[in-house]
């Protein structure tokens, strides 16, 4: 079984982002999606530190450390970009104006609960940033993550064991094995990678999954 690579996952997410969307790509894995946005679509990227219309990393030597993304890495501003302060930036997110945000996750529950900010380990220093605002703010919250932890535990769960980032907020999960929608009835699989059959996906996931793949 050939799992999807990080790049293949990113490309798969990118395919589902319509022309004209306002999108926030969370730190970590989701950042990769920017590299795969179809060039025939105009998609406006939001970064919560205060920019709409964020462009790619600058060429070497052209870095401006007053123009960074949420990971504090230098970026560029496209024609049409706008800068704004933090309350205005989060108003965009919390007010439901972003079409899509893509977040990484530790766990997603069948109710759409998201856990991605804290492992809950007693000695870990917690850090949340804009994750909780993003999770509940966008019109659609997509999650992009490996399907299983390093030791084979499913990250799709009946109930999150890690501290929550947001409740009932995830609309769709893209993993290295499948694409899974979440609605009132729980997980519903709309795509599985080749070479993996549905029964095996269910076994690996250890949660109830409906088969909603197009015939």
């Amino acid at each position, binding site marked *: 079984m050939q799992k999807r690579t990080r790049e293949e996952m990113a490309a798969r997410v990118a395919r589902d982002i319509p022309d*004209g969307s306002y999108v926030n790509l969370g730190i970590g894995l989701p950042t990769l999606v920017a590299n795969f946005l179809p060039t025939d679509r105009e998609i406006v990227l939001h970064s919560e530190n205060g920019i709409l219309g964020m462009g790619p990393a600058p060429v070497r030597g052209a870095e401006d450390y007053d123009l960074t993304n949420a990971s504090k890495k230098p970026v560029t501003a496209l024609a049409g970009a*706008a*800068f704004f302060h933090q309350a205005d930036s989060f*108003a965009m997110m919390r*007010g439901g104006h*972003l079409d899509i945000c893509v977040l990484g996750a530790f766990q997603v529950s069948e109710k759409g609960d998201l856990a991605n900010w804290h492992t809950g380990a007693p000695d870990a220093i917690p850090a949340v940033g804009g994750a909780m605002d993003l999770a509940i703010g966008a019109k659609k919250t997509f999650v992009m993550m490996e399907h299983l932890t390093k030791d084979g535990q499913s990250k799709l769960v009946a109930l999150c064991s890690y501290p929550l980032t947001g409740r009932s907020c995830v609309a769709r999960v893209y993993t290295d094995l499948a694409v899974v929608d979440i609605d009132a009835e729980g997980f519903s699989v709309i795509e599985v990678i080749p070479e993996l059959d549905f029964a095996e996906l269910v076994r690996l996931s250890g949660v109830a999954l409906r088969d909603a793949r197009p015939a």
Partner: protein
Amino acid sequence: MINKIAPSIESAVADIRDGSTVLVGGFGNAGMPFALIDALIAQGAKDLVIVSNNAGNADHGLAALLKTGRVRKVVCSFPRQVDSWVFDSLYHAGKIELELVPQGNLAERMRAAGAGIGAFFCPTGVGTELAGDRETREINGRMYVLEYPIRGDVALIKAHRADRWGNLVYRKTARNFGPIMAMAAATTIVEVDEVVELGALDPENIVTPGIYVQRVVPMTA
């Protein structure tokens, strides 16, 4: 490609439905979207709730819309003006409903709608009849009234310049309610003096980012 420039003013307002809540920009005539209001009159939607700072001046703009009898209710801070005769006569004839809201509450309630705030404890109006029977609370020794967001189905506003992404800049005090109405409405329609190339507006100076704008109607067309 993103192109929010509307093909015509008629098309820009075509889908405004009967019963809509319409946020209308302007402080008196400054920032009043006269062309969009005229287009709304021609379009014919009725049973409207209008949210605006005033209730129309003389016989044009908002006053002309009121005169059609298609406005059920006005939510505003300052209806009574020397030239608000259209509103005055409708009001005295019992033909229009008025919800009077202090100007700062009007602004903050629309901003709250745009920013996802569920409600807020507000210092203005405490102990006055405009607080009505709203919930009050003492916080840190001061009294507040709980105020709720005002959302619009549509906002009609005026700006100075726009690009095809819907980024806006305004002109002087004509800015007034434009930026917050754009945040608070599901569909924001803007009349502008001029459309400029994408990138011509300095990203440092954009007042309303295009995310809040759905349709732009140039007045130079």
